């Protein structure tokens, strides 16, 4: 979909992708675009891509479980200094804000998984979850102090 400018300085992109791992790079592309519209630098954009891809990967792997069993609607909203990403899927309910990221482990037994939720929380300023009907609505928000417009 072509970008839509609503009001003065909001840029909105929206795209629905099949819930498959090979679609994650496209999701990253969307996030990168949104991050740059928000005036984020490359490094901040990269962090946002990491976080959103972790969330999307979880939907594919743990939500739908079977590749291509559904889809994910990705919407980015950018305004100077702020990027909001909405991920909507129709997999079984899961609230990632309720799960405790695993950040307490021994050097002798480091964790092989469970890094995704941690990355999402560390990168994003807000993580908001809602179940609406048969859909999961996840909203991730990132803000920076001094946007370069």
């Amino acid at each position: 979909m072509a970008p839509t400018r609503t009001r003065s300085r909001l840029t909105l992109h929206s795209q629905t992708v099949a819930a498959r791992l090979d679609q994650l790079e496209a999701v990253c592309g969307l996030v990168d675009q949104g991050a740059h519209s928000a005036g984020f630098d490359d490094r901040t954009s990269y962090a946002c891509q990491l976080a959103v891809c972790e969330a999307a990967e979880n939907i594919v792997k743990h939500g739908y479980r079977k590749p291509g069993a559904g889809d994910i609607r990705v919407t980015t909203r950018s305004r100077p200094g702020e990027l909001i990403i909405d991920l909507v899927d129709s997999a079984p309910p899961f609230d990632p804000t309720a799960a405790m990221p695993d950040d307490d482990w021994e050097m002798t037994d480091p964790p092989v998984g469970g890094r995704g939720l941690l990355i999402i929380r560390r990168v994003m300023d807000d993580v908001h979850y809602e179940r609406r009907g048969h859909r999961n609505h996840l909203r991730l928000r990132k803000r920076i102090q001094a946007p370069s417009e």
Partner: protein
Amino acid sequence: MEIKTQVYKRVVAVTVSGRVDSATAGDLEAALTALTNESHTNLVLDLAAVDFLSSSGLRVLVTTLKAVRKLGGDVRLAQPSQRAVDAINLAGLDVLFKVFPDRESAIGSY
């Protein structure tokens, strides 16, 4: 993602480049498992050209680390890109890996 492997006498240097995510982590895991199966346990991962490193890639690094440590080896990182470092730090895994500014010092550290 591209993987190049250089086998030295006591160390193997693995050069990883490109995007390491859920779509490619399997290939990296296969390459590293092949090495540990051949008793190559002193590993240097050159991450200079990694431009994306997701938790799936990190999972492979940690799995490999655990496997080689059991055998007295280690996984050490050489000249990781800023993006690789950012991913490792965000995942809280920076304490696990020794990082070296260049391949030579990483190889020489064994």
